């Protein structure tokens, strides 16, 4: 047991990682008297699917919000691709290749699925008001290319039959798939998924895992929060365990599952 712990500790050291896409150093955030993130330090290596687990209230979602720019940290640093993005706006963080999804699927009322997909691509010429009137050709060209790409990705996700359905009329699980597909249109280097499998039925959950694996093979790095242990242990390596706002340990799924500290944290006691 102690050997395993040692090994895990070695892997925890973020400085030993070579090609780091996300580095979090000594990150702190508190809401009033509640310390949500307590000197968290970890790194995500390029080309991995890194899992982020921890008991309820461990501060996983807060950490996501801090990393993606939705919250401003009280202290510490966030680096994406070697650039300091601490305290930047979410859109600026996204410019550095980090895209996130949300725990509850966000509904785009009044849009069809493929329309909702088209929000994904970044730096569309048609997002400039003046281009609409002075360069309509360029706008149309890119829109066409984006639509094609969106339809291809929907096909790869096997949900192309939903393309012209209203985006609010599909099931929760399908929404999760659409959300993942849309995030891919933004061509992220690092994709943060907040509980991708929550509320998704088992069949669709397997499909989702397959998709994440496939995208991972195509070169996207993932950091995902997940409560479903089977899902995360099958998919992620390494797994980071968060407890009370700080990083408890990091290691391969097997080591994490058998670690006494992790078990204690989940059972809720410093026995």
């Amino acid at each position, binding site marked *: 047991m102690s050997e395993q712990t040692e090994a895990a500790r070695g892997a925890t050291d973020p400085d030993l990682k070579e090609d780091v896409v996300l580095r979090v150093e000594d990150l702190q955030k508190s809401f009033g008297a509640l310390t949500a993130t307590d000197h968290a330090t970890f790194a995500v290596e390029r080309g991995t699917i890194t899992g982020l687990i921890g008991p309820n209230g461990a501060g996983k979602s807060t950490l996501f919000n801090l990393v*993606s*720019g*939705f919250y401003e940290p009280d202290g510490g640093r966030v680096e994406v691709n070697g650039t300091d993005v601490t305290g930047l*706006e*979410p*859109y600026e963080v*996204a*410019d550095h290749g980090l*895209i*996130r*999804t*949300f725990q509850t699927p*966000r*509904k*785009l*009322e*009044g*849009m*069809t699925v*493929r*329309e909702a997909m*088209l*929000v*994904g691509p*970044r730096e*569309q*010429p*048609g*997002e*400039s*008001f003046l281009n*609409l*009137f002075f360069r*309509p050709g360029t*706008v*149309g060209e890119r*829109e*066409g290319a984006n*639509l094609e790409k969106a339809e291809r990705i929907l096909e790869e996700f096997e949900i192309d039959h939903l393309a*012209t359905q*209203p*985006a*609010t*009329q599909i*099931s*929760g699980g399908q929404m999760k798939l659409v959300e993942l597909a*849309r*995030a891919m249109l*933004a061509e992220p280097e690092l994709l943060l998924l907040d509980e991708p499998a929550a509320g998704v039925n088992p069949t669709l959950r397997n499909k989702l895992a397959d998709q994440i694996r496939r995208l991972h093979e195509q070169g996207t790095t993932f950091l995902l929060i997940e409560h479903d242990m089977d899902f995360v242990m099958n998919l992620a390596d390494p797994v980071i365990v968060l407890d009370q706002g700080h990083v408890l340990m990091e290691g391969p799924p097997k080591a994490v599952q058998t670690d006494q500290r992790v078990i204690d944290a989940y059972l809720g006691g410093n026995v």
Partner: protein
Amino acid sequence: MGVLSDPKGYWADLTRAERGVVASVVAFAVLLLAGLLTGALSPTYFLFLVGIAGMYALLSFGLNSQWGFSGLINFSVAAFFGIGAYGTALMSADSSPIAGGYLPIVGLFVALAVAGVLALAIGIPTLRLRADYLAIASLGLAEVVRLVVLNERQLTNGSAGVRGIPQFFEGWPVLATLPQQMPGLVVRPFPGTELVLETPFWGALLNVAVVVAFVGVSYGILRRAHRSPWGRVLRTIRADEDLARALGKNTYAFKMQSFVLGSLIMALAGVFYAHLNLFVSPGDLDPVTTFYVWVAVILGGSGSNRGALFGGVVIVTIREGTRFLSGLSEFVLDLGVVALQFDLSFISSNVAPLRFLLIGVLIVVLMRYRPQGMLPPQRELIWPSVVDDPPSKLESGVRGVKAGESDE
């Protein structure tokens, strides 16, 4: 798929609500035409009404591009309208205490510039915050603008208002004197009715041409913007701003653009009004205008440009149509055997409250039976040249689904 080239196909392609709207619009037009031809409605007054309707359509467009597109709650429609009206009035009128004497076209640009600056000034502090802050700030702004106009006499003439505003085409080569040069015509569509078309009529016609141009240009711009990736980001912000931020959109900049654009269109309505009425006073900045325009946008269907157009016209119909009621004093229903006589003087003496009642009832009925408005956006909004197959019509309309209804 034009109405003229393929009327049957056009009709078949409409939803039930759209058919209802088309039918009532046609019926209303026939009614107006009948009124005109029988002499019940004076042609000059009719053209004035068309001008007012166009003005309301512009205001609705402006609000729609803020509330309908991005979900920005702006309660200072009347203020931006007033800025437009006073901007051009103070630049061009003889009685202007500050500038005066400039061409109306100069007034137009000055008014738009002032409105744009004011929109920026109110947007910079509030658009970074939650939606409700803009609502509160704009409510305050409307009062501030109104009170400044009322009290800064050395700038605005105060409660006396600004008189002597020229026609919009003042100083233009041909158009400036066109109404005077047109021959006076007398048309007799039926024996017994006589329509006199003289200088005031031609002047009013020219005004209508101005407003039609304003409305047309604004509609064209908004329609293109609505179907573009730009509009799509705005609609994403309206549905869920955090999602737009997570996907890397600078939502603050987008909201600012949408807010300024809407404010400019509202100011444009004000500019037109000043040159239509030739007199502006602080009373024109009455906050009730703001709420009329809100009703127009909600009635037409938030987010829909043609809905805003429709809503604007309906509001003018209610606003101006109720004026006719003041002439009513009694109504006699002659059933042959007995004649029932109704005393209607309570209506004629209460037209203003009645107008509010009508609008109130309209809103209640609308919210109960058609909360999405009469003409909500019905079809996919993708850049026109891209989707070659017109997207299959969505039976319920994309927007017409109650949230959560079909979840799981």
